[in-house]
Structures are given as structure tokens and as C-alpha cells.
């Protein structure tokens, strides 16, 4: 009983010991925060990667792909059995994306991916990354009549708005076409007088732009409802963007029709300014040109015009600024991947989704056995991002070791302070022994004291760590407000908030480690106290 009482009294009267508690507290809090943030990042990254990639990817080594995806899918189904929950074929080729921004042609190197719009969303989280609510339910490569999200649907709280997406879709396309028509008209009407004055075409460049806007608004106000094709018909004749579909052999009306729809990554079409608002270079409704190689040897470059119908935003900038999705049949047709005689198409890869609870590596190995490795490359999503995932895990392990050393340093602080307290309390130890306290009892006081300090420090650290973790975004905002520096730049990470995951298993290990170190550090002082000779202890001043 005296042990408890004395532990408690020492704790209450020895403020110096509380100093060592503070170091334990800070160490534990830091570990909890760092682990939570790292786990949050890691989890976010893994879900992102896994959301983009299907469970298992079945690819050919060749850019031309393999023939007959249907047969392959049946074979995969036979090899995998019930574990195969879904499959979709894809064609992926490197390509160049070209689009015009204020008269300048912008070219981006992209991965052009042909997907099956009906099944692709079933094997990965693809559908969830689109910007139109209807497309999220079921992707359509037809341009929508407005209704794109102006608020990021994946952010938990209303993040920065995307006002540019307000009118995207058909209304934007019609306005754009109308504006171009009016601009062309104005330019042509000024062409005649400009024969006298050369500067005329350049001079009114900024002025008409404003007046054109007002004219466009007037036109749109008049025809806010679906545009009347009859009134637009003459205008389309002068449309500079008109393109001729070779197979149709007729002039298309860009205000009424669209080219083949594509879904580019949002990183290709926009950038985030430093207030966190997304600025768009192109919008759904704009037309872009894509150049890509045909199948066969040697590959030839072919180009076609496409209409942007939505944006893909996986929040992994690597993918968001690289992927462009297109209907697989169109891509197969344009690349010449459909056998003209039999009509059997070829594909590059088959994305496989496994039923929940299937062992990823086991199923991959099973499929690898069933198909020759010379022909097919079969890998799980983890294999695809293996080095990245490994690096993150390694980073976490090293950080944990380093941070644990902080607590170990706190342990040495406890050791030093306890030695001091034992020396200070030598006479009391003698008194206790003269009253019949055993050596183990005296050691127990200091071990218990260490345990108390450890628990107190770890408890306070837990509270502090959780408080910081749960409010980390508020703290970040505050730090940014104080320093005026961006601590966490959403344009780099593509999430608005610092993600955190509090893992109670990790926390219990941290707490156990901290308490263990505190108790461990008090072992030596406790032994010293236990070994004190009572007579000498009593004589001690």
C-alpha cells in the first residue's frame, strides 16, 4: 500500500519528473500524428492506385495486342473459376493530345486508353472519378446537356469550386460555336475595308472580343432552350472547325453534333491556382485532336478529332495528367485492330476484377500458370506499383525507428532524473527499510513511479496526438495563415485535406513501447534504491 501512496506523493511533489513526462508525451504525440498521416497517405495512395488499376491486369507484350478478347476472357474464367468477378478489355497506346487555348496549340503526351463504357466501371473505381453525376452511374461517351459538378465530388467537405464547369457540356459547346461564328463574321466583314488599312484586323482584336461576348449572350438568351437547327444551319457553313467524317462524307454541325467522345484526365485540362481553384484550359464540349500509332508494322501515325465529354480525376496526378479514355470500338477501328475478314477485334489487355476475399498473389500465379509468359504479362495492381508501395512502407518503418528513438531519449531523461530522486530520497528509503519495507518493495516504489510517469506521459501523448491528428487540417490552415506559406499544396497532392488514419493497433504499440521504456528506464534506479544499506541510508543527509 505504501508503494502506491508514495508513488502518488512523489508524482505530485516532483515537478522535475514531470519534465521527463513531457518528453514522453511529445514523443508519443509525434509518433501518433506521423503514423496517422503516413497511414492516411499510404491508404489514400493505395485506394487510388487500386481504384485506377483493376485487381489483375492481363496484357500482351505487343502494342498491337492479341486477337479475340472474348476467347481470352473465357479462358481466364476457366482458369480462375469463381474468383473472377468481372473482366473488361482495354486497348492502350501512347498518343499526343492537341488542343487550342486562345489560339495556341497545346500538345500533351498521353496514354490513350480504349475502354468498354458498359463494363469498365465494374472492374475498377473508374466510374467514381468522373465529373458528371450521370456518368458516375453509367459512363456515356455522348456529351451531356450540362450538370457537371462545380464542387469536387470526392472531397469530404465543399472544397474549392470549379465555376468553369457550370456551363460545360452542350450549352458551352453551342456558345463556343456561336462565338466562333460571330467572330468569323466580324473578321470577314472587316476584311474588305482592311484592304486599305493593314492594321485593322489586329487593332479591334480586344474590342470585338468584348462585343462578341455581349452578342453571344444575346443569342443565347434568345435561344436558351435547345437551339433551333434551322437558324444554325447557315452559320455552320462558315464554321472553321467543321470536320468531315470520312465514312459519312457530310458536313457536320458542331453545335448539334459531336465527334467521338473522350474523357481526358483532369490534370491535362486544368491546373490548380494557388487559391485552390481549378482553372480549365478545355471544357467538356471542346474539340481536341489526338495523334496515335496504328497497329501493324511499322506503325503509322493517325489523327482524329474528338470531343471532350467528361474529365477523369483519380487524384493521382501521375494518372490524371496522363490518361485519356476513348470508346474501345472506335480506337480499335481507327488503329485497324479489327480483322477485316472475320471482324474479330484485338486488344492490348484485359482488366480482371476478383471477387472479394480472393488471394491476389495466388490468383495471379494461377493465371500465370495457365498462360504462356512469352505471350502475356500478368500482374496484380500491387506488382504494378510495387516499388512505390515498398518505398512508402520503408519510409514509414524508418520514420518509426527514428521517432521511437525520441522516446528512448526521453527514457534516458527518466533514468537520470530517477537516479537523482533516489539519491535525494536515500534517507526516506532508509526509513522505509527501518519500518520493515523489503528491498523489492522499495524497488517497487520506483518501478511503479516509472510506470505512473510512463502511463501519464503516454496518456497525455495519446490525447495530444489524437487531438492534433483529428484537427490537423485546422492546424494546417492556422499555420498557413500565420506564416503565409502553403504547408500542404493541394495542386501537388490533389487532395484538399491531409488524410489521416488512426490505427488502434499501431497506437497500442506506441503506448506499450513508451510505457515499457519508462519502466525500463526506472529499473536501474529502482535496483539502486533496493540495494541501499538501511543504516547508511539513514545516515545520509
Amino acid at each position: 500500500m505504501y508503494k502506491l501512496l508514495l508513488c502518488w506523493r512523489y508524482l505530485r511533489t516532483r515537478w522535475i519528473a514531470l519534465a521527463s513526462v513531457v518528453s514522453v508525451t511529445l514523443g508519443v504525440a509525434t509518433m501518433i500524428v506521423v503514423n496517422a498521416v503516413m497511414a492516411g497517405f499510404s491508404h489514400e495512395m493505395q485506394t487510388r492506385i487500386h481504384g485506377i488499376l483493376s485487381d489483375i491486369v492481363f496484357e500482351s507484350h505487343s502494342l498491337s495486342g492479341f486477337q479475340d478478347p472474348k476467347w481470352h476472357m473465357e479462358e481466364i474464367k476457366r482458369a480462375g473459376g469463381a474468383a473472377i468477378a468481372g473482366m473488361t478489355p482495354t486497348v492502350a497506346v501512347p498518343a499526343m493530345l492537341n488542343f487550342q487555348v486562345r489560339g495556341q496549340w497545346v500538345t500533351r503526351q498521353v496514354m490513350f486508353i480504349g475502354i468498354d463504357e458498359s463494363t469498365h466501371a465494374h472492374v475498377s473505381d473508374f466510374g467514381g472519378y468522373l465529373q458528371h453525376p450521370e456518368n458516375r452511374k453509367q459512363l456515356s461517351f455522348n456529351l451531356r446537356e450540362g450538370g457537371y459538378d462545380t464542387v469536387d465530388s470526392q472531397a469530404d467537405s465543399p472544397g474549392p469550386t470549379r465555376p468553369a464547369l457550370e456551363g460545360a457540356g452542350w450549352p458551352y459547346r453551342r456558345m463556343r460555336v456561336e462565338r466562333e461564328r460571330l467572330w468569323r463574321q466580324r473578321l470577314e466583314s472587316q476584311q474588305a475595308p482592311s484592304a486599305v488599312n493593314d492594321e485593322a484586323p489586329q487593332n479591334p482584336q480586344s474590342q470585338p472580343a468584348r462585343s462578341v461576348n455581349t452578342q453571344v449572350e444575346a443569342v443565347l438568351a434568345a435561344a436558351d432552350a435547345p437551339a433551333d437547327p434551322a437558324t444554325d444551319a447557315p452559320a455552320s457553313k462558315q464554321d472553321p472547325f467543321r470536320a468531315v467524317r470520312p465514312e459519312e462524307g457530310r458536313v457536320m454541325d458542331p453545335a448539334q453534333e459531336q465527334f467521338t467522345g473522350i474523357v481526358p484526365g483532369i490534370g491535362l485540362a486544368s491546373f490548380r491556382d494557388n487559391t485552390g481553384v481549378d482553372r480549365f484550359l478545355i471544357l467538356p464540349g471542346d474539340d481536341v485532336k489526338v495523334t496515335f500509332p496504328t497497329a501493324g508494322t511499322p506503325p503509322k501515325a493517325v489523327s482524329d478529332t474528338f470531343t471532350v465529354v467528361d474529365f477523369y480525376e483519380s487524384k493521382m496526378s501521375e494518372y490524371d495528367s496522363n490518361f485519356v479514355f476513348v470508346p474501345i470500338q472506335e480506337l480499335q477501328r481507327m488503329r485497324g485492330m479489327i480483322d477485316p475478314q472475320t471482324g474479330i477485334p484485338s486488344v492490348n489487355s484485359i482488366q480482371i476484377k476478383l471477387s472479394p476475399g480472393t488471394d491476389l498473389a495466388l490468383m495471379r500465379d494461377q493465371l500465370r500458370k495457365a498462360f504462356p509468359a512469352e505471350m502475356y504479362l500478368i500482374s496484380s495492381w500491387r506488382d504494378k506499383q510495387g516499388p512505390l508501395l515498398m518505398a512508402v512502407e520503408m519510409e514509414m518503418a524508418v520514420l518509426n525507428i527514428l521517432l521511437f528513438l525520441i522516446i528512448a531519449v526521453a527514457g534516458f531523461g527518466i533514468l537520470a532524473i530517477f537516479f537523482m530522486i533516489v539519491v535525494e530520497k536515500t534517507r526516506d528509503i532508509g526509513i522505509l527499510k527501518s519500518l520493515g519495507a523489503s528491498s523489492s518493495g522499495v524497488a517497487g516504489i520506483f518501478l511503479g513511479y516509472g510506470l505512473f510517469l510512463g502511463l501519464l506521459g503516454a496518456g497525455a501523448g495519446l490525447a495530444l496526438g489524437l487531438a492534433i491528428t483529428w484537427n490537423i487540417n485546422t492546424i494546417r490552415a492556422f499555420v498557413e495563415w500565420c506564416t503565409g506559406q502553403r504547408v500542404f499544396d493541394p495542386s501537388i497532392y490533389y487532395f484538399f485535406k491531409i488524410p489521416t488514419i488512426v490505427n488502434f493497433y499501431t497506437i497500442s504499440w506506441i503506448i506499450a513501447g513508451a510505457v515499457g521504456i519508462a519502466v525500463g528506464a526506472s529499473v536501474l534506479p529502482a535496483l539502486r534504491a533496493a540495494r541501499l544499506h538501511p543504516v547508511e541510508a539513514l545516515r545520509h543527509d
Partner: protein
Amino acid sequence: MTRAAMNDDKQPARADREQAGRECDEHGNAAPIPLLSVRKLRKNYRSGGGLLEVLRGVDFDLDQSGFVAIVGQSGSGKSTLLHLMGLLDEPDSGEVYLSGTRIDNLPAHHRDRLRNTDIGMVFQSYHLLPELNALENVLAPLMVRYGVFEWMRRKTEARSRARTLLERFGLGARLHHKPRQLSGGEMQRVAIARALVSQPRVLLADEPTGNLDEASGAEILDTICELNREDGLSIVLVTHDSAIARRADRIVRLAAGHVEKV
């Protein structure tokens, strides 16, 4: 002789008891076994390179309800003798008996137990625990004795006993004062109350008045005499002051590590 004593150390307790009984028989006394006795007690301290012989074979008896004063000059070994009797230290040779049972060679936890239950000690500089108040200091031996659960059960009883003791010594109003808020005399009375709370068989007092002014010292001495007279408590009092020693039934004078006069 040292070797013989060392051999004795190894003998089982039963033989010790027989031996103690025999010794009494040899004296031819029909009187009961002395409460506390030491035989041929030797104690050396190593200081620097040399060996300091503090006790060189001390024999000494304390009868039941006896009051013995041990006097001697500084360094005569009287405190060492008291520590050996109180089991705070181990003799180099010789034996200590409590009611005829040899106690100096018991295992450590037995000696701890005896110190806690059968021996009460009072020191010159009080030796109260500064973190505890007067009442808690008095309760300390009982807290040492009981585990948490037993303490919970006996708390009320223990507290009332401690309170009664403190009230008896005139400290009823100072129960919750810390040692530093008490005067020397009061601290020593708390220390005496602490020594008595476990109802020991013998009280060992090491210069209990040494740090006190005359009046307080006299009060403490009166208290100790009263405990001996009225409660029949056996007391060993160590002092260098022969005036104080005269209050005892018997005086033992230590000089050069020997008992000079009984």
C-alpha cells in the same frame, strides 16, 4: 571464536533456541528468557584501508518490560549495537535473540517482517517521511505491512489506532500537518507514535532527545518512561547523557567496543 560463531550461523533456528535455553539454565536463573539478548556481538567497519572494530564481543540482555540505557562516548558503538538489535545491520559474528529465538541470521524477508511487527525504532533526527502528514507517517508501518486490499479492509481500524496514539501524545490537532510544519518535539512524538502503532515487543530509541531543546527533550523522555511504566513496554535507550540514562532501570556502558559496566 569467530569461526565458532560462523559455524553457529549455519545452525538451524531450533538448535539456536535450545542453546539459548541452555544458557539460561547455566545461569541458574528461574527467571524467564530475556526478551532481547545479544551474545558476543562483533561488528567491524572497513574505512579507508584499515579495519575499524566497532563492537568486539558485546553481551547484553533486556528483560520483558525492562528499560535499559546504553551509554558511551561518540564512536563507542552504541548506535551500531542498536542497529544490530533492530536488524538494520548484520553482525560479523555473534547472535541476536528475540524471546529466545535467534533473529540475526533469518532470511531478509523474515527480518523485514520482524522489523515491521516486533521492533519499534525511534531516531535522533526523527526520520519522518516528508511527503506524508503526521497521521500517514504513523500509519506507514501498517501500510508497509498490508497489501492494497488488506489495507482497504483494515483502514478504518488502523486510522483510529493511529489517531488514538497521536491524541495520546497531544498531537490530536496536528494530524494532517506535514513534518516540516511540526516542531522537533512534535516530530519526535510522531516518530514514537509510528514506532508504537504496530504494537512492537521492544522499542529501540537512538538518542531520541539529541536534537531537542531541554524542555522538549524532557517531555519526550517522560513519554518514554511512561510507556515503560504504564504500558510495560520494553525499551532500549541509547544516549550519551548519563543524566538521561539514570531514568532507566539499568545502564549499560559501552567503551572501546566492550560492555564496561552493567
